[in-house]
């Protein structure tokens, strides 16, 4: 009877703490940068989709005005001269030339642009010799999935959610201490552990809402340029599974990182130092032995991502960070993450019990 009453009281108190914190987290001006961080990839994907749509129309138009066969374009090799290229595939639809002087010698760089209606070809000549061939293929769902996976794992998980959680969760205790307003909570008839849970859940709700909304909008933005049949085929296939997986990984990232940074805010006077250490630890994850790899949030998160990223045009180190995730069954990954989260929260609860108010020292 007593325990039932306590649970009821504690749950009511947790709800009150969440209500108080929501106002400060969701609607505070100082939290705007978290929204910005979450919106950046959304804006990028929308811009990209608009670009793809415009490009598609452009290529279709150019196919009629400057027709060029795909086989002929694919047969062009480096080392050929401009005349040889024109002889094979005709005049380009676009051409740019500029000259420059290096070490008292004059040089030129010429760029020829072709399209076969689907793909774009860019031939770069240095002094009349073909030096570089770049191909921009028409975007397919397969391409898009890889691009999304790269952005999600490299930027969104490791940087956007990471720094967003640093900002929101360290603010819960350390920020209150700096604002000299934490004592109001400690002067209420609420157990320190209950207060900790309330604040953690408040931070979790805020970050999960912000970042899962961002993930959903990113997927929407990414798929905006797809045609109806392509989209239907994708959703009938792996589509919903992948969308669910990404949303789930986002929420789990907030869960894991949130506990780490809440604890950092309690344990350290300057939680940015442990945050920097965590950032370096997570970056070094690919190089760690198997046992140590499991003591990180990113290890579990990356293993649950539905698509393995294969980044093109990324620095080598970044590519290494993305390609090293070992496949781990989802149950183990989620379980492992929850165990890490609970362990960290237990440590934070111990520190919360011993918390004293001494603002001048802080």
């Amino acid at each position, binding site marked *: 009877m007593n325990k039932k009453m306590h649970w009821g009281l504690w749950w009511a108190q947790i709800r009150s703490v969440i209500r108080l914190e929501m*106002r400060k987290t969701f609607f505070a001006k100082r939290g705007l940068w978290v929204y910005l961080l979450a919106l950046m990839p959304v804006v990028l994907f929308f811009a990209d989709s608009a670009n793809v749509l415009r490009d598609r129309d452009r290529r279709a138009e150019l196919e009629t005005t400057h027709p060029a066969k795909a086989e002929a374009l694919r047969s062009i090799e480096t080392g050929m001269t401009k005349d040889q290229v024109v002889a094979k595939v005709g005049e380009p639809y676009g051409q740019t030339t500029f000259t420059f002087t290096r070490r008292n010698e004059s040089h030129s760089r010429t760029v020829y642009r072709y399209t076969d209606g689907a793909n774009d070809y860019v031939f770069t000549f240095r002094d009349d010799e073909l030096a570089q061939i770049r191909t921009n293929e028409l975007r397919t769902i397969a391409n898009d999935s890889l691009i999304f996976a790269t952005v999600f794992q490299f930027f969104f998980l490791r940087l956007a959610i990471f720094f967003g959680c640093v900002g929101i969760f360290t603010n819960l205790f350390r920020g209150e201490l700096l*604002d000299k307003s934490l*004592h109001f909570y*400690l002067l*209420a008839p609420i157990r320190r552990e209950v207060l900790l849970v309330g604040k953690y859940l408040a931070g979790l709700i805020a970050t999960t809402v912000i970042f899962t909304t961002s993930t959903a909008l990113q997927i929407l933005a990414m798929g905006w340029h797809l045609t109806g049949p392509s989209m239907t085929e994708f959703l009938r296939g792996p589509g919903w599974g992948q969308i669910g997986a990404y949303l789930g990984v986002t929420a789990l990232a907030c869960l894991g990182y949130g506990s780490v940074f809440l604890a950092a805010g309690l344990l350290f006077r300057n939680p940015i130092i442990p945050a920097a250490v965590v950032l370096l630890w997570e970056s070094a994850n690919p190089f760690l032995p198997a046992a140590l790899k499991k003591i990180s949030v990113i290890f579990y998160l990356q293993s649950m991502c539905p698509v393995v990223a294969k980044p093109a045009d990324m620095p080598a180190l970044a590519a290494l960070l993305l390609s090293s995730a070992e496949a781990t069954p989802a149950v183990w990954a989620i379980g492992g993450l929850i165990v890490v989260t609970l362990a960290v929260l237990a440590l934070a609860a111990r520190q919360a019990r011993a918390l*004293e108010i001494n603002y001048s020292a802080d």
Partner: protein
Amino acid sequence: MIASPETTNQGAAAPPPIERSLVVFDNVSRFYGEVLGVNRVTLAIPPGITSLVGPNGSGKTTLMNLMTGLVRPTRGDIKVRGVATDDPERLFRIVGYSTQFDSFPKGLTGFDFVYSFLRLFGDSHADCEARAWKAIERVNLAEPAKRRVAGYSKGMRQRIKLAQAIAHDPQVLVLDEPLNGLDPLVRAETIALFREFAAAGKHVIMSTHILHEVDMISDQVILLANGYVVAEGEISGVRSEISEQPIQVQVRCDRPSAMAARVFATDHVVEVKLHTDGGGLLIKTRDADKFYRLLNHIALEGISIESVTPADDNANSIYEYLIGGEEATR
């Protein structure tokens, strides 16, 4: 209303009846590293208005933080009406604390501030709303209650902190310089509020620098200096125990010079000053009882005595004697 742990706690042994009405410090010390906060403090504070008096850094705020659990004692034990200070679930149902910190959670209005922290008690919305408004009206802040606290004046911020401290009708009200920044009218209203609490058998423990207000409103006083309790009790009782300081008495009479000559003949009078208006004397004597017996003789000898008033039976004087001397010897 959801039952609180206090009402359902059947496990712990109940403290003896006398302790349930006292705030007890038992040989309490608190050090901040090598810096002394308070040392070997033993107090039993009864209900009523108790003032903590002392210079800056004497340990007043430390004492208040100790009795509200915001800091833990290095040594010793503290019980507030029988409740340990490391049991926040029970403690803060009976304690309200208005701290010295002039900072508030960001973005809240006055009402939100009082209401939101009342909700932490686990009570219903309707109950909390009613109690919040009652507390806000009690401190005369009903009109600006819907404005943000960040836009309040110093006096308004002080009052909203007080409203938050009294909203749950605590048994023990701890106040760190509560009259700071209040204009005279509001100050009088606030003092009336404290008297109301004290009259209901509750504790009002406050720190203050305004010694004449200590005289006016306090039932007892605790003097602190350098982390030690220098004196505690009713002001007159404390004064009578300071035997090394001669008491000062003001006497109005018709023949002050004759009276001066008469009292100088004794061995316990150490100083006599004639009033500038020529109508009285300020006499310092080491023995109050002998002096008052002497007055009876003087009156029988034909000198007309109009009034006899203790001149140093106040907080200012005992502060000077007990703490002013210590400050001078540092």
